[in-house]
């Protein structure tokens, strides 16, 4: 009787090698070089940009928006950024860091990109921070909002053209502190980094401004489809308003259930803008009307850059843009501005050029500038109302400028 012998595993282990060899370049992993090889040489030529967006899983709709905006910008600028001709390599971030981090590393080491743009999931951003620093490539984040990315865990190569989780919550906290809802505010958010950071920021401005918290609940992240058990605590808490952070599928379920459990009319709902942004608004339908949120963007912002942007985006893709699209558009914009100032494409020069940018005046979201390595921009108070083609986020007022 044959004992399974280790040998044959090894023999067929060659299959794995063969598969790799097929995809491999030849090259050495120990001689001389470390991760990544040279990038394309600098000075008015070509640049390889790695665009990392979700193309599979729950974040795909965001990925679609982001890629659309990127393509649109290049389209409108003859495929050039700052005088360099752009070659875009798209990689799929997937749903989480277990797919996102390898994808980013692939872009760096296998595809030898010069610059990285994108990333929805903060965990992927944090997880690749070291690799990016070691490779000295600039990353311009087009979504991932964890405070630490440009805070505690920052390095000179990671820049952000999107937002950080605290901003919208902090802005809303200040606003509600001014509104003084009777009975205080009830807080809800999913139990992960973004939700937790939202809580902290909101409390900082709201409680700091004299408000009271009627109650709070952090719901299990990603696994909660039914919010009823948590929502049923709200009437009993006596809260005069609810503030939440939810996005994507959870936002849809939450808003619908908030309405169907009768809370919509009795306890006004406020949120970070993601609650009613993009395709979720469509799915929420009637249940979303009247919700007020704070965000750094709305399609209804009145400035020339935004009107042009919205029109172009709609013309090209037949849907309204979202904040995710604007964030990526702005990433392209800042790269365009920065690359025009650099002599070469090394991470250090690009980073220095980004630092040298002053106010970004041409952005659809309004004027903004870098505070550290993350945007300091205007937060808008928006309200969901019926528009011409469907539901839109109408700008009620500007809440002010917020940095990190």
């Amino acid at each position, binding site marked *: 009787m044959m004992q399974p012998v280790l040998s044959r595993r090894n023999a067929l282990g060659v299959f794995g090698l063969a598969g790799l060899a097929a995809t491999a370049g030849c090259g050495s992993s120990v001689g001389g070089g470390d991760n990544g090889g040279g990038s394309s040489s600098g000075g008015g030529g070509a640049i390889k940009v790695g665009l990392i967006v979700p193309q*599979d*899983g*729950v*974040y*795909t*709709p965001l990925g679609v928006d982001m890629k659309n905006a990127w393509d649109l910008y290049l389209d409108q600028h003859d495929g050039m950024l700052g005088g360099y001709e752009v070659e875009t390599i798209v990689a799929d971030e997937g749903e989480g860091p277990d797919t996102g981090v390898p994808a980013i590393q692939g872009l760096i080491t296998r595809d030898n990109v010069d610059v990285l743009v994108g990333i929805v999931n903060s965990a992927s951003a944090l997880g690749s921070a070291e690799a990016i620093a070691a490779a000295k490539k600039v990353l311009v984040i087009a979504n991932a909002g964890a405070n630490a990315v440009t805070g505690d865990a920052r390095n000179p190569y990671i820049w952000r053209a999107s937002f950080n989780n605290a901003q919208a919550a902090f802005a809303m906290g200040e606003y509600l502190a001014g509104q003084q809802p009777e009975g205080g505010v009830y807080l809800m958010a999913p*139990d992960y980094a973004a939700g937790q950071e939202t809580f902290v920021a909101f409390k900082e401005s709201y409680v700091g401004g004299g408000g009271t918290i009627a109650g709070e*609940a*952090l*719901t*299990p992240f990603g*696994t*909660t*489809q*039914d919010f*009823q*058990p*948590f929502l*049923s*605590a709200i009437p*009993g808490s006596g809260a005069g308003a609810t503030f939440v952070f939810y996005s*994507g*599928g959870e936002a*849809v*379920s939450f808003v*619908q259930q908030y*309405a*169907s*459990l*009768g*809370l919509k009319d009795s306890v006004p709902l406020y949120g970070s803008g993601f609650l009613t942004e993009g*395709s*979720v608004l*469509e*799915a*929420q*339908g009637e249940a979303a009307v009247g919700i007020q949120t704070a965000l750094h963007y709305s399609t209804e912002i009145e400035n020339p850059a935004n009107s042009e942007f919205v029109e172009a985006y709609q013309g090209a893709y037949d849907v309204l843009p979202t904040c995710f699209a604007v964030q990526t558009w702005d990433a392209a914009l800042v790269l365009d501005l920065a690359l025009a100032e650099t002599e070469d494409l090394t991470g250090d020069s690009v980073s220095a050029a980004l630092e040298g940018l002053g106010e970004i005046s041409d952005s659809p979201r309004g004027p903004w500038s870098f505070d550290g390595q993350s945007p300091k921009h205007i937060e808008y108070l928006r309200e969901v109302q019926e528009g011409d083609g469907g539901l839109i986020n109408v700008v009620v007022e500007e809440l002010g400028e917020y940095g990190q």
Partner: protein
Amino acid sequence: MTEWFADNFVSILNGLAIGSLLFILAVGLSLVFGMMDVLNLGHGALYLIGAYVGYQFTGGVSSWSGFLTALAVAAVFGAVAGLILSVATQPLVGRGHLDQALLTLGVALVVAEVISIIFGDDVQNVVAPPGLNESIQVFGNTYPAYRLALIGVGAVLAIIVWLVIEKTSLGALIRASVSDREMVSAVGVDNRKVKAGVFAFGSMLAAVAGVLGGPVYGARTGLDETVLLLALVVIVIGGLGSVRGALIGALVIGQVESLGKALYPDFASFMLFGALALVLIVRPRGLFGSRVGAG
């Protein structure tokens, strides 16, 4: 006491609604396993098919015709899928249960991906038909009418299934197969047909549950895994192969998911699998599993 009850009334009611949905979902899984020892890990994918069928035919609009059409189509799709699965696992019968279970897992992966290719990854909404699309007052609490209807549907279905299983000859055949498959085939009944029938029936229920669950859970990628895990917990707690067990298990888990989370929100994430682990350690055969044989 009554005050506690009043405070938590909505949660308890919700637990019944979720429980009803889970029963419809899980009873097929339990029967198939009880009869054929096949753990159909594709059960969640069947639910997903139903959910997207529901989305496709209602299109985010409240309509009875859309909803009923969706139910009918889902039932057909589900039954057919069940037959296919039954046929697909047949060649593996001699090879053991792990292989059959893993086959269904492979099928589940493929189905979920195909759905994501066809429908995209957006989160979709299924609207309840008119009349049920609103909230009504129950003892001073606002509650969605649709979920109340769901409780009703679940109850009716439970009665029907019970009648069939307990009172008809088909039901006797099913019970006999659960007990002793060889004996049944020795008596001259073609096991494969019974298996196909049960598979088709169970899968049909799963797909129908997908449509019925639309207004509660919507249609989105990843729902199949969530739902599968819920169903597995239900049938293990209730006892494999037992319809009664599926009902009680579903009601229990429905309450765990609603009342449990409302009472202990800090432990909400741990409750489902904590309950499963507890039952498996203390009473592995579940509440209504076989009486015979030591655990």
